[in-house]
Each structure stands twice: as C-alpha cells, then as structure tokens.
C-alpha cells in the first residue's frame, strides 16, 4: 500500500506558508507555546466567508487551497482530515456561552464552527466537492488514521487523488489546563527545547495538507509514501518492543534497516519521553544514519506528525537537510529512504516511511 505525494503545504509557527521549501529564517520564540505565523487570508479565501471563520478554519482552508494549487488544481476524489482537538477555540466559546447564559439563548456561529469536522466540510464546500469526506479524531493517531485511510482509498481504487490534512490549534485554556498537569516547560527559547533535558515540552499547532495520489505523473518518480504503522504503549523501558515494531514495519515495506538514510524523530525535549529516541540512536540504526528533530519548530500537538511529514517531503525533494533540524554531524549525503518515528507521551507510537524514487 503506497502512494505518491504530489504536493504539500503547511501553516506552522515557522515561515512555511509562502513557499513549499524549508524556510531560510527560523522563528525563535521564548514562550511555553508556539503559535502559527499566518498568511494574509484575504488572498486565499473570499473575504465574505472569512468573517465568520475561526482561526483554525482559516488555517485549514488556506493550507488546503495552497496544497491544491501546488498540485496543479487537482479536484480531490476524497478529503480526509485528522485532528486531535478539532475547532477547540469555538467549542470553548460555545460551552462558556451555554454556562454564561444559563443554558438559554446562545450565539449560532460558535456552535456551527465548533465541530471537529468543520475544516473538512468547509474545504468541500469551498471546492463544491461532493466526494468522500471524513475526519479522524484519535488523539495522536488522528493524522496517521487519515493518512492510512487515504492509502486504503487509493489501494482499493476508490480514489486517485486524496487531499489529506492534519490540523490542531493551541488555545489559551488548553495550554493553561494542561499546564496544571505538568505538560509544559517554563517559557524558554524554542531553539533550546531539544537539548533542555528537563520535564515538559512546548505546546504547538499547525495545519498541514498533502495531495496524495495513486496515479503518478508521467515521470513516475517522486516522493513515495511507502507505509504507515501505529502501535500503542509499549512499556517505557521496553526498547526491544519498539525496535521489534520498526523491524516488522520495514520488512512489511520491503525495506532493510541498512537502507534507512535518515530518521525524523519526534523528540520534544521532555526527558520523560525522549529516552526511547535517544536509545534508538545508540546502535539500532546504521552508523551513518542522519537524525533529525522538528518539534522545536512546531511545538508538541496531536497532529505534529503532519508537520514531520511535510519536513520529510521537502527534505527528500530538495535533497538538503536543513541545519536547523539536523541532529548529527554527518556531512550531507543523498537521502533516499526516510523514516519518521513519533511517540506521544509514550502512548501513541507511529512510523511513516518515505522514499525518493519510483512508485
């Protein structure tokens, strides 16, 4: 089960929305959260529609429009979105209004815009697209589930071109409440996150979209999504089981461990959960493997792997590993196979394999 990624777009806390490649300047923020650098939406969305949209809808719609445009205006056969928290800001507003007004009259818009599937639905309405449309909300497996469904749609020939997205927003109350649970560090520079070696991480957000296709262009080469694998909660100290899952997954994708050129790790600076990543770097992969980190650029959120997929895509496409994400001192070498490994608080683990080659 594999497909070609034809185009991508991401709105993130970095300058990523204006071009498909990796930005030349890194956005440094001293905070406990990273929020998105947003485009001028009036260039992408009808201003009459814009006025009713909450921020996450604007982000999702703009990212989807950019992706479709970069894919040459393809009308997707399916629109599939993954989100951990949906339109959380409007949900908070709606519920607070219900309480404030003693369960009587409430404003209409926050309710309309509070559902998890609002982004996928609005993308379809904007495109006048009546095809398969679904939203997955499975915590840190949300984006992976969306991607898995896209591959299945293509495999079963239900769709040729699938628009897949991963979106989540970081709201004030979300950060505050999870702060009580010790999720976040005290404000620090995001560029110091990965080496901080203390408890907690930085909250983040983003909207990423991909046009995934089962029908390659004429040149039949490109960035291939080789497969996805998810697994739950191996024991914290049980590195063997993580290695076993990776080995099993690579075998399923007909790829040898020695063929892996680079690994994109979901390191988030939290010393409770980063141990698995560090352990994997000590001897499991071949010596010349390039390791990359990305959560200092986007923060931690349920669909952060969508940002990782975008980073993997642009790295393979450009054949350049940006210094800002390169954790090794290995000189640049051709990168053909890239493995993405993420674990969310050691509960949800996911593996995605990308290859630069033929479908």
């Amino acid at each position, binding site marked *: 089960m594999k497909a070609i990624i034809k185009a991508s777009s991401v709105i993130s806390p970095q300058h990523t929305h204006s071009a498909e490649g990796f930005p030349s300047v890194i956005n440094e923020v001293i905070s406990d959260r990273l929020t998105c650098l947003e485009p001028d939406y009036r260039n992408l969305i009808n*201003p009459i529609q814009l006025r009713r949209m909450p921020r996450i809808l604007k982000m999702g719609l703009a990212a989807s429009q950019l992706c479709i445009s970069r894919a040459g205006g393809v009308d997707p056969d399916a629109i599939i979105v993954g989100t951990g928290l949906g339109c959380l800001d409007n949900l908070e507003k709606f519920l607070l209004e219900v309480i404030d007004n003693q369960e009587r009259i409430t404003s*209409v*818009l926050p309710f309309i815009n509070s559902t998890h599937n609002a982004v996928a639905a609005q993308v379809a309405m904007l495109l006048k697209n009546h095809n398969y449309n679904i939203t997955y909300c499975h915590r840190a497996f949300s984006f992976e589930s969306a991607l898995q469904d896209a591959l299945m749609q293509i495999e079963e020939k239900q769709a040729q071109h699938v628009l897949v997205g991963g979106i989540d927003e970081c709201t004030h109350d979300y950060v505050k409440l999870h702060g009580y649970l010790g999720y976040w560090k005290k404000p620090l520079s995001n560029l110091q996150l990965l080496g901080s070696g203390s408890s907690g991480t930085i909250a983040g957000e983003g909207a990423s979209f991909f046009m995934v296709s089962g029908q390659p262009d004429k040149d039949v080469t490109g960035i291939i999504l080789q497969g996805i694998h998810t697994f739950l909660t191996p024991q914290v100290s049980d590195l063997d089981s993580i290695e076993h899952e990776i080995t099993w997954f690579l075998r399923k994708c007909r790829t040898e461990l020695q063929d892996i050129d680079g690994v994109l790790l979901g390191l988030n600076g939290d010393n409770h959960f980063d141990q698995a990543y560090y352990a994997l770097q000590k001897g499991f992969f071949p010596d010349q493997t390039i390791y990359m980190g990305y959560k200092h650029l986007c923060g931690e959120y349920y669909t952060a792997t969508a940002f990782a997929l975008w980073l993997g895509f642009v790295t393979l496409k450009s054949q350049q590993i940006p210094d800002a994400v390169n954790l090794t001192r290995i000189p640049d070498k051709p990168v053909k196979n890239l493995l993405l490994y993420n674990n969310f608080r050691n509960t949800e683990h996911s593996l995605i394999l990308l290859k630069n080659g033929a479908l």
Partner: protein
Amino acid sequence: MEELIRQLKLDIIEALSLEDVVADDFDADTPLFVEGLGLDSIDALELILLMERKYGVKIEDPKERRNVLRNVRAMAICITNHTNTNG
C-alpha cells in the same frame, strides 16, 4: 434616536465581525439583507440575539422580526418603543 442608531451600527459591525465595514459606510435606511450590507439568515439569528441580550427586546413573531430587521432605523424604533412601553 441618532445616538441609538450610531450605537446599533457599531454593535452590528462587532456582532457580525464586519471587519472591512465602518459605521459611516451605511446609513440608518440601508437595507441590511441581500442588497445593502448583504447579510444572510445566520446574521439574522445573530441580530435577534443582539436585540435580546443587549436591549432586552424579544421578538417572537417571524413577520415582525422581518420588519424590524430590515434596516438600522427600524431596529432603533423597535428598541425605543420597547423601552417606552416597559420603562
């Protein structure tokens, strides 16, 4: 009345997030729906809520709602009448 009309215009702009509109862009007799400001049925619900929450005016009859929400002057007259009747 003129002060109330001015305030209603500001309330409408805020309640409906009319980001590119200022109070001087429309007058008290400008139609609110379809032509004029170009509002729609979802905006109508927000305006009914505005009348009820801020000015304490509850309009139950759909025909009367349509009449009151035709422009800012009609809304202001309705609020003034309600205030005069109910103190």
